[in-house]
């Protein structure tokens, strides 16, 4: 064979390795997302659809339930993600110390929540946060509160439970990324800083954090995407209640499609809100990370 034909044969072989995956991605990801875009222009109920142009987009701005779901998702995002990332960073910094006693044990314990399914831990938390449940008992018994907190039946506290639950499940997961990145940092840098008299806290903020920036960016982006898609937890903890206080965009799409009289076109429009938000926020986070890079 001539070199050219060998190269062509190789290229074709290469594509044959990728072909099954690419076909399936086309069928089960690309086609649905384009189909969703088309559906978002359709109005009507069930399979009785007609072209409505931007009617669904107008409907979004006038739909109080959608606006509620959007602001809930925003609150979860703005409150939960930073708390979790700071906690994960602190835990990773503490566990990165090789002289620490019981390091492996602490690490395993903090990581353990990651093995539970989202449904399982949501159901667990629901039982723990029952009005006369174990959490309220402990709080009353230690006199931290005088009366039981209506965790799941109050619009404010229900949001707090969701934030606590998500933080419990994902802090250890993020910590593992930070810990792995910290262990890749050259130790001699710290030695030099220590000799120069740089205090521990400054070593953390001036040395560790800048070097962890790519990982922090990665975890922020994935956490943001995860929070925008929040479904399993809220559906099993509160079913979006009370009074839609924990309704998320994903749960609203599910309700629009499978709970109420199906409104496929409008559901597709709401789903594109998530797509646009994910793209905008990922882009913004990358932009912020680039801007802060020291020149």
């Amino acid at each position, binding site marked *: 064979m001539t070199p050219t034909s060998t190269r062509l044969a190789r290229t074709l072989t290469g594509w044959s390795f990728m072909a099954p995956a690419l076909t399936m991605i086309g069928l089960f990801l690309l086609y649905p997302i384009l189909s969703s875009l088309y559906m978002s222009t359709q109005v009507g109920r069930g399979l009785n659809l007609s072209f409505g142009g931007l009617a669904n987009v107008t409907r979004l701005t006038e739909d109080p339930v959608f606006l509620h779901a959007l602001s809930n998702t925003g609150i979860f995002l703005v409150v939960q993600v930073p708390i979790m990332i700071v*906690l994960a960073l602190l835990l990773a910094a503490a566990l990165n110390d090789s002289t620490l006693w019981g390091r492996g044990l602490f690490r395993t314990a903090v990581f353990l929540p990651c093995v539970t399914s989202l449904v399982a831990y949501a159901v667990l938390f629901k039982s723990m946060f029952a009005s006369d449940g174990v959490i309220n008992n402990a709080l009353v018994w230690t006199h931290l509160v005088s009366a039981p907190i209506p965790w799941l039946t109050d619009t404010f506290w229900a949001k707090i439970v969701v934030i606590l639950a998500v933080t419990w499940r994902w802090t250890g997961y993020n910590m593992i990324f930070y810990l792995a990145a910290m262990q890749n940092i050259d130790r001699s840098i710290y030695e030099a800083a220590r000799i120069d008299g740089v205090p521990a806290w400054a070593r953390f903020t001036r040395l560790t954090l800048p070097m962890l920036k790519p990982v922090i960016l990665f975890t922020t982006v994935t956490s943001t995407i995860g929070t925008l898609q929040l479904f399993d937890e809220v559906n099993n903890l509160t079913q979006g209640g009370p009074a839609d206080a924990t309704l998320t965009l994903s749960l609203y799409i599910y309700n629009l499609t499978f709970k109420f009289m199906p409104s496929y076109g409008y559901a597709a429009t709401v789903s594109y809100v998530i797509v646009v938000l994910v793209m905008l926020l990922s882009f913004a986070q990358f932009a912020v990370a680039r801007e802060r890079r020291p020149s």
Partner: protein
Amino acid sequence: MSLRFVGRAFTYLGLAIAAYLSVFPFYWMMVGATNTSADIIKGKAGYGAALWDNFAKLFAQVDMAQVTLNSAEIAAIGTALTLLVSSMAGYGFEMFRTRISERVFAFLLLLLSIPFAAIMVPLFVTMSKLHIVNTFLAVIIPSVASIFIIFYFRQSSKAFPTELRDAARVDGLKEWQIFLYIYVPVMRSTYAAATIIVFMANWNNYLWPLIVLQTNEKKTITLVVASLGSAYVPDYGVVMVATTLATLPTLIIFFLLQRQFVEGLVGSVK
């Protein structure tokens, strides 16, 4: 010295609190499995005597053998297919790079950020057009070509010694033989880590099975936990037994293969 000592003490205190809060719900789950629903809601934190009662009630309500089998079947077939299809693609993208394939790969990474909620409605419509709603095939097939796993294998393939491939070519092995007999065995730790991640994702999957599996004899253990927990008045003793059973396989895998578990999570971003 004393300042350092105080700092140390605070570190241990913080870690102890974090570890306690992380582990407590597991303790709560296992203790709950031995208590009556009334005791659980009252926050009883010690072991009770209702374990067999709860078991009996759960098995009377749900065909647990069938449900566990369903979950196992979906997770096993789903994992095997995902690893095959996605590792082949990751291998292809790394070993047979062309200008076009690099562009396709960049495009795939862009698709990675598409939320599942945005495709679930058309996906469901596709499944009903294919007449496979309420089958395991419908649960498994959309996630078989996982961009995340393709990416993971491509990244890991960078460590694959290409001399092995070149030597095999000289020896006259066909490309699929090189993949199957050389790449797969050499990359077994990558496969192990990916297996854990994909198995967990399949076993714990909720939203998509909730949509496509509609009859009781097809339900997975995750769906059963959810429906027991969302009952108007949940029997929490029964719920805790079901939750424990649903969590046990992943817990066992975690403790047996902790290193691969963590490697699988972190490996993809290295």
